[in-house]
């Protein structure tokens, strides 16, 4: 941690802002330099490559239609006609598990990892305050959400452009939109997917404040993720399901309808904001009141 980088404070709020920025920058750099983070991003980047090659090999024999029966992730049948659909398929394939798992690993490690490594007290010696440190950690995790999503999207776009034709595309409602419009929607979808991970990020951060073991926090977060995903599949719990954070995750596909169907998208974003508020404040309550011994 390069605490010394913070410039001497002249007066007022400005130094604080600079200070926070310095803290955030050092957090981001530390997080992204970890081999673990790079490996996670590498795995995420590999998913679209695998999907793209699989679809290409599958349809090489001249059959132009996608896999029979409409199985597999959403949009997979359209990839052969337009490489841009690989972006949507890759996001649909990674959103249920790979992306939140990566976020869970980074979020679970955020506080507990520092505590386990014995560096947390040094971070707190710096004149940052616990609240600001927590906010910085959460911002870093959210930045990772966005980065991870963009890695998947960009990798998918590159593979899609290499293996398949690009051009005007047909929305799932059957209307046609131009390639630029399609690209815009792809970016919007990537942002929505990144925002969908905000809830699991807050959950991971809260778990991370509960323990001093980074591994335990990661395992708990990923375990909770899997449990909630399973609960979301049980029809008998239908009264509960709309409040589980992954319930509306796949609603990002509604952006490919024409006109866009906003209902579930809005519900998804609202639910993520709720989870972020609840677990963010719980993490704050825990972290600011906790005895830091490591």
């Amino acid at each position, binding site marked *: 941690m390069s605490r010394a980088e913070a410039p001497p*404070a002249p007066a007022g709020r400005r130094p604080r802002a600079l200070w926070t920025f310095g803290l955030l920058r050092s957090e981001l750099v530390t997080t992204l330099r970890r081999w673990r983070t790079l490996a996670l991003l590498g795995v995420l980047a590999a998913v679209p490559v695998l999907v793209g090659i699989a679809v290409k090999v599958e349809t090489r024999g001249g059959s132009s239609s996608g896999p029979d029966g409409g199985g597999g992730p*959403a949009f997979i049948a359209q990839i052969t006609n337009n490489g841009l659909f690989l972006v949507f398929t890759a996001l649909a394939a990674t959103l249920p598990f790979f992306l939140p798992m990566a976020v869970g690993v980074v979020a679970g490690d955020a506080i507990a990892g520092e505590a386990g490594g014995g560096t947390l007290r040094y971070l707190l010696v*710096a004149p*940052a*305050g616990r609240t600001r440190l927590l906010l910085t950690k959460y911002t870093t995790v959210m930045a990772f959400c966005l980065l991870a999503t963009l890695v998947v999207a960009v990798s998918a776009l590159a593979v899609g452009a290499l293996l398949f034709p690009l051009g005007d595309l047909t929305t799932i409602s059957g209307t046609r939109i131009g390639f630029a419009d399609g690209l815009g929607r792809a970016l919007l979808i990537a942002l929505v997917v990144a925002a969908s991970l905000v809830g699991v990020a807050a959950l991971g951060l809260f778990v991370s404040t509960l323990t001093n073991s980074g591994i335990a926090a990661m395992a708990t977060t990923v375990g909770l993720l899997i449990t909630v995903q399973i609960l979301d599949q049980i029809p008998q719990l239908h009264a509960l399901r709309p409040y589980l954070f992954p319930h509306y995750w796949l609603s990002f596909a509604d952006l490919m309808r024409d006109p866009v169907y906003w209902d579930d998208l809005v519900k998804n974003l609202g639910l993520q904001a709720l989870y972020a508020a609840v677990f963010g404040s719980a993490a704050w309550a825990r972290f600011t009141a906790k005895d830091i011994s490591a």
Partner: protein
Amino acid sequence: MAPYESDDATAAAQAEDAPSGRRKAARYAVPVAVVGVAAATIGLVPALADSGDPALPKITAQQLIDKIAKSDVQRLSGTVKVSTDLGLPNLGGLESTLASGAARGGDGSSADPKSHLTELVSGTHTLRVAADGPDRQKLSLLESGAEYSMIHDGKDVWGYDSKTNEVYHGTAAASAGRHRAAPPATPKDFADEALKAVDGTTSVTVDGTAQVAGRDAYKLLIKPKQSGTTVGAVSIAVDAKTGMPLKFTLTPRSGGAAVLDAGFTQVSFARPAASTFDFTPPKGAKVTEEKDRRAPQAGGEDFAKGLGGAHGPQGAHGPKVLGKGWTSIATFDTGAKGGVPSGSRGGQLGGFLGSLGDQVSGKFGKGTVFSTRLVNALITDDGKVYAGAVTKDALVKAADQGK
């Protein structure tokens, strides 16, 4: 937010290091309060949004029926939610597998309207409708990550299934007789059917007003007076301005949740964008052409047959209708002696089918009654099928008379 956000690190650290137990606990009030506020919002907002029934001028039932009849809405776009709860056993994926399997056996395209009609028989579905005059209509069935669209544009009728990227193409001429090739799904389709059944044996009243999809509406309540039917009441919310049915609810006589509830959640009477109705098959999509003269006969008849006659083989003779009004019973002869192998005959399968239905006997002989919350069907051992929105006793009586 916190008092220790100061650059004076030592003081802040000290303040944080020794918070009293009470202050520690008080912090947890924040997340609890957030949950409380969220729960209150979720609970209260719908109640507050329900700003009471709109005040509309009084109208008689007959005037309201005339209003529906005169309604001539040419342009609209909106979202319809259809919930069906027939009380059928939940077969989950099996149902759709059977349905698509059947359609596939028929002509091999998942974009065929018929293969999607059966989906509407159970569960909750969101549909989008758009119309611009009699020649341009669109009906889309929203699925998770996919959509099935039926587009009628001039003489072309397209079905597009985005999940499989398959296209079904027919011409409006081939589906002559019905200028809408779409299955009945909108409140208006259902309301038309219900109003057809209105006769002397029905009580029709105006049951106050309501807000549907943000529009003021009258509520028309239709109640069959005859005994023997399973239909409890039909409630239709009619838009006060245009006279278009906005919501259709059918409750069974046995009470409980509505069997069928179809209503607009959002509606606009502006002209939909022209591009809505433009369709060119996407590159690489598999296009199935409609077979000659095989019109997509996706009418209420199919719907009823899908409900009542799901177990019976296709009727050797067309169905005959006994009685009229709400207690009418459709009957046909499967031609197959033996009917449903009940009880001892038919081995394990027979036992399974028999366990789904109830054994009945009467002057007609023996048979099995299959019940849903609305439609009951009697399959006699000599291969006749009686089905209708009537009670079991009425079915047995009809079978006795038919003997």
